[in-house]
């Protein structure tokens, strides 16, 4: 793939030295083309966030190269990296990470001051993005008054405001219920397919498989072949969404049985009235 927007070549990250050294990411290579949505899955502690941090220029690899839109991030110094992050990469975080004192529109516009054209031109773009993401009437709302789904849509608008060729999303549906999670996935799909951006999603959410062009499996810091049967599908007893019990992050024990959930939100509802949901199919 020669026209890849995002390339990682033999990227390794080692924390510590000597016998205390921990190899968080080992010899990972990948390429993502324009318009492609790639999903990285793997168990907790497999090095997904470390890999994402290196691909986003937030952490330097111990060895290997990361290239975004033809720019080798590993050759840039600390004063050059912020500019690449501002212009070339849109970040979407699991915790949304909106600036709490700014309105939805201000959050979207905020990174635009880093690129040519500045705030004034960005306001028009921000309005269009908020409109497109169904937030036109919420532009003056503060983050604390937004629902989880709205917050993540604002975060997506912020990631897109500077028109970056690469979008890096870390568990973008991790804090959302099924409905809002589905919305966010569809938006990411559009961002890749319709706008030609390279989208990399690190997630445990099996629904991403339905929209991903490729799925990569990261385990013990290295990309591996995906297991033949990686899923064991069960239903979230609360929202009835399909959940992979093998990779599920949210679970609880009740009456000697294990229940898995799509999100902490469903767990909270379950714990409020376990008997109501216990008979459902989420138990394993």
């Amino acid at each position, binding site marked *: 793939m020669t026209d890849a927007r995002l390339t990682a070549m033999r990227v390794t990250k080692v924390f510590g030295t000597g016998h205390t050294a921990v190899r968080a990411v080992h010899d990972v290579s990948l390429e993502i083309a324009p318009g492609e949505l790639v999903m990285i899955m793997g168990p907790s502690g497999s090095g997904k*966030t470390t890999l*994402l*941090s290196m691909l*986003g220029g*937030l*952490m330097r690899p111990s060895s290997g190269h990361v290239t975004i839109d033809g720019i080798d991030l590993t050759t840039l110094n600390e*004063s050059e990296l*912020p*500019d*690449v*992050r*501002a*212009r070339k990469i849109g*970040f979407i*975080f*699991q*915790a949304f*990470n909106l*600036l*709490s*004192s*700014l309105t939805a529109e*201000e959050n979207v*516009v*905020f*990174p635009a*001051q*880093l690129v040519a054209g500045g*705030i004034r031109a960005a306001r028009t773009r921000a309005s269009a993005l908020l409109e497109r993401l169904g937030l036109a009437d919420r532009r003056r709302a503060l983050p604390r008054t937004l629902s989880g789904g709205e917050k993540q849509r604002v975060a997506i608008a*912020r990631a897109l405001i500077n028109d970056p060729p690469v979008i890096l999303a*870390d*568990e973008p549906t*991790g*804090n959302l219920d099924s409905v809002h999670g589905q919305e966010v996935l569809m938006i990411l799909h559009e961002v890749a397919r319709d706008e030609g951006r390279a989208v990399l999603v690190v997630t445990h959410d099996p629904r991403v498989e339905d929209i991903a062009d490729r799925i990569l499996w990261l385990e013990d810091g290295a990309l591996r072949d995906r297991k033949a049967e990686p899923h064991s599908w069960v239903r979230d007893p609360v929202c009835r969404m399909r959940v992979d019990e093998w990779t599920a992050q949210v679970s609880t024990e009740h009456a000697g049985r294990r229940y898995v959930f799509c999100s902490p939100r469903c767990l909270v509802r379950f714990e409020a009235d376990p008997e109501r949901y216990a008979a459902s199919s989420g138990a394993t």
Partner: protein
Amino acid sequence: MTLRWIAKNLLEERAALAASIGGVALSLVVVLLVDGMFAGESERIVTYPERAGADVWVMQSGVSNIHMATSLMRGEVVGAVKAVRGVASATPILNVGAFLESRGGRWYSYVIGVHPEERRGGPWAMVSGRALPGPGEAVIPDVLAQKAKLGIGSTINALGRTFTIVGISTDTYSMANSVTFVAYGDLAQLLSVRDGTASYLLIEAAPGTSSADLAARIRSAVPDVNALTREAAVESDRRIAMQMGIGIIGVMTWVGGLVAALVIALTTYTATIRRARELGVVKALGFRQRTLYLTVLVQGGVIAALGYGVALAVAYAVRPLLGVSTPEVALVYPPVSLLRLAATTALIAIAASCLSGRHVARVDPAIAFRE
């Protein structure tokens, strides 16, 4: 937009902002009040040499002050000074520091002996009664009269003698240097000095003679005396007053400044800690380190500026109240002192922000990926 974000961050935590501004203001108010009291007292201390009516002050050789000094000149010396060309008149006064006693209270005052027929050396503004005392009489300052509950006809004891109050003057009181007037003859008797002896001579320059020239001429013509223009005498007394208080002012300024610095540092530091994640996110989005430094600096600057403003408002609000409740204390805020404190506050804000800046530099942008 960055400044807007910083401002909104500050306003989002109104209670913390108010507490920080209050803390800074409190520490600066202490500095302002101490400084203001000292400046006020320094002004009052020099009122007598400024208002007594002398163009030139003549005193014993080796003495260069009226405040905190003892001077005594023989009658022959006084005569020699009067003979100097350019001297239109020379008014001798006697001066001694003494405790005034009345109704069990004691108050320290300079007791000035003035000739009842002289125009110079006595009080220049009166609240009531006569300005110049005769034998056995005294004129006391209004603040002292108020504090001691004395009036015309009351008596006070000084230097072992009782005086009847015949006048109450104003503008003659300070905590360190109140001025009470008695008859020259009474004081000469109490000090056991001959008639014609003077502590100081208040010289009136002849028309067309400059004070500076006359002072120089007296110094060269009469070897046993020192002569200073009114301005030089005032400046000399002011300098003495400043020297006496500069240590206290310095310590108070340091203490106040240190407290203000700690408050600003603590505020910006805790705000930085509280918002470490947001700062990490901002870094991840592509903002440079300097934006984050600016955040902390502006935050510290705003707190310092508002704290200074509040302190100034409080200091000026206190002034008239103090004038009523504690008339012996005068508050004066010289513009140069206010500017110096403003500059000090700005430096404090920068220094305090630098402490938080170190923490800002260490914020990891990858924190944005952690839940």
